[in-house]
């Protein structure tokens, strides 16, 4: 706690200057004084590892450091595929400002755009930090991405008929129709298209957790779980909006 008396002095000055009482760490003007970190986290503490229920607890050396569970190829495939999948959602929402005045569609579109754009960055960081490409591998000469582990014939993804698309992604024809539509027709195509698109994301999450050794990395686990939860919720909102259009 070496830094404490100093900070207190600064704060006393601040109080006098500002005429208000403030606590602990305080920015006086632009002077920001971080707290000194004097406490050592060790010293008398023990590191232990319990056993299975009923089994004794082991004492580990004080020098023990953490180790990571493995990541699997399915994890990498999922992240690479989801970047492509998310990119199309962002592309779809980018049409909204010029294609519809519907307030609800604009609001949900803004939210989807903001969420998925941000998630693309997160996935890119995840992949790059692990030395992985941020897009899918291509079989040489095919010009098409391979999707190991992805079952493209899944009946839950009606739109995923185009070769090279992740589940639920809109076909080139669907995208073209969306691009040409305006007003209520656009709203209808956008909502039904995004419901299809989100449905595909749920399939991708299901496939991930149905893959051996996948999902043990904490970030991919949390991210995939959040994709499932939040897109499921958005599907319901969009389904209700779609019903109100009819």
């Amino acid at each position, binding site marked *: 706690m070496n830094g404490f008396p100093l900070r207190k002095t600064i704060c006393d000055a601040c109080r006098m200057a500002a005429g208000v009482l403030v*606590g602990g760490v305080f920015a006086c003007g632009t002077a920001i004084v971080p707290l000194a970190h004097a406490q050592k986290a060790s010293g008398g503490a023990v590191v232990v*590892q319990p056993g299975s229920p009923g089994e004794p607890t082991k004492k580990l050396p004080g020098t023990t450091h953490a180790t990571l569970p*493995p990541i699997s190829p399915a994890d990498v495939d999922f992240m690479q595929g989801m970047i492509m999948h998310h990119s199309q959602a962002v592309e779809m929402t980018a049409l909204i400002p010029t294609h519809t005045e519907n307030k609800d569609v604009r609001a949900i579109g*803004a939210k989807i755009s903001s969420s998925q754009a941000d998630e693309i960055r997160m996935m890119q960081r995840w992949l790059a930090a692990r*030395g992985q490409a941020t897009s899918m591998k291509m079989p040489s000469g095919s010009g098409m991405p391979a999707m*190991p*582990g992805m079952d493209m014939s899944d009946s839950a993804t009606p739109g995923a008929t185009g070769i090279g698309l992740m589940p639920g992604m809109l076909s080139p024809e669907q995208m073209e129709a969306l691009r040409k539509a305006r007003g209520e027709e656009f709203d209808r195509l956008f909502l039904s298209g995004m419901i299809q698109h989100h449905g595909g994301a749920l399939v991708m999450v299901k496939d991930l957790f149905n893959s051996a050794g996948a999902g043990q990395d904490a970030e991919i686990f949390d991210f995939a*779980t959040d994709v499932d939860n939040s897109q499921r919720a958005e599907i319901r909102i969009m389904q209700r909006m779609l019903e109100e259009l009819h």
Partner: protein
Amino acid sequence: MNHARRLVLPLVAIAAVFFFPKLSISQEQTQAPAQGSAGQAQAAPKAEEKPSKPGEDPFAPHPAPPLPAGMTGSDVNDPRVKLKAGMYDAGEIAKGLKHVTFLKKPDAFQIQATSSDDPSVKKVLGQLGVGAAELEKMPKTLQMVIAQLAFANSDFAFQGNHLFQGNFYGVNIYDISNPAKTSLLTSMVCPGGQGDVSVHGNLMFMSVEMPNGRIDCGTEGFPPEPAPAAGHEKERRLPVPQKERFRGVRIFDISDIKSPKQVAAVQTCRGSHTHTLVVDPNDKDDVYIYVSGTSFVRQSEELAGCSGEAPDKDPNTALFRIDVIKVPVAHPEQAAIVSHPRVFIDPRTGVINGLSNGGSHGKDEEKPRDTDQCHDITVYSALGLAAGACSGNGLLLDIKDPVNPKRLDAVNDPNYSYWHSATFSNDGSKVVFTDEWGGGLGARCRANDPNKWGADAIFNLKDEKLSFANYYKMPAAQGDTENCVAHNGSLIPVPGRDIEVQAWYQGGVSVMDFTDPAHPQEIAYFDRGPIDPKMLVLGGDWSAYWYNGAIYGSEIARGLDVFELAPTEQLTQNEIDATKAVQVKELNVQNQQKLEWPATLVVAKAYVDQLERSQALPADRIASLRKAIRNAEKSHLKEKQVAKLRAMTGDLETSAGTIKSHADASRIQALVEILKHPVA
């Protein structure tokens, strides 16, 4: 702490250089399918986000999209906006809070990154899929930015002088007998995330949900499957059922605080994302655990009876329910699931998927609904109620029979992404829900992020019905590299006011007054700069809870913070002293206990300060009250002085009857009770 900073910053630069060639190539690959799906090159869509351009830094943050029409964002003029970045030397700022100490995350919960020649470094990176050639060039310090969440600090529980800090990798137990000198006692290694933790007597409970969780607390997880044979690349391969896998709630005996012993491990189909300790006031021999599973349902080959099917295909689906574990306190090894309450049931039709976030008045009443999980449940046994934050809905449950909770009400909100957690006001007249938009992984408190998204929603609770009052979001704009959204908080026992301290990830800690639910206000805060200025490194406060006079912050990446309240115009020293009059033996925040204040003059002074602040009483009456209380204190409650206090209560009761503000009338009433019978 400059040491750590040296590790992070060069790393960003080196990582960028190191990865660019790879990214440049992959970018060309990305373009092909994107063009294909876009049809003939029309006006290129003005996507807010595109895959990285060649040469673009993949770690660089991206500004928020424009604020949607009609929405308000965060305050860019707040002093919290421009704090310096850093892992351990970030700029810090506080108002109304004193930062009394900080402890780094214990070494046993961090990857060793000091020696570049350490073979464990190679092993770790190898596991991450980093090849030998890449390993040659890779800075060892890259570990600082990968897999932080694998060792993320999570939730807290408290008992006596002990603080239990959950972590995705286990639990750390601290001695907090003197909060300013908090010290580590035990690092318990037992991975599986999230490590949500509760304590009761000699028992500690811990949530496990991730596929790397092992029944024996092993750190190795399970090996990835070998590569498929040629020609079989596209075949789906199901995970191998693992008898050693554990997803559910672990129970430890903590009678030896330096050697917790696993005594039971109750497996569940979806694992346990969070859990809630439930103590039945009518049953001293057992406690209950409400298990909220938010993750995927595992195969029945691994745990018999687990089904992730839709309810129409399998009425016994593990979706659309919570799990209740009964734990005989004297025989925790007999803990077992006793019920699977269908809290989303439609009571009229009996369908188990009867709730959705799409509105409770839709035209599609016969259609299946989608809310299939609770994220966290806060029980308030003294009221016989629970508030469930259940993905698409906020629920009110009757838990008088704790094994069979019954839904009383359900609400939804068009601005809510994910109903995450709940806190009752002490009198049970309000519930604060949180929306964890983006799951806590993203920057969602930027200037352009709407203040109704990823915010608290405060509801009035009357006659078993919830009604919306207002939103509250930590007001200061946060940077592009700070993950930020509403997260876990607890009540601070200020008598006469509803005050919650709450964690906002890298948005820091915010203390909110929601006494008037329509006008919640921030009264104190603490914030640090981002971990890194150039890329989002996950961190910030998971939980911020008050416990016996101090506030503890669970910093995901950095460690453990301890704060005390400091007086401001919005919270006086008397009010702070009154909070210290409330001491509890155990605190599991989601098992909410009724706060009760002793009839001491310290508490009376807090009420007087509040009546002055709200101008409920004129200045001369405030002054005479203070004088009478001071004299009574000085006399150590001599009868003559106490009689003078009693003599003032008649006028006060008259005032209480004429004051419009319900809060002020209640304060005067509470003040009267103390003045009539003050205790030392």
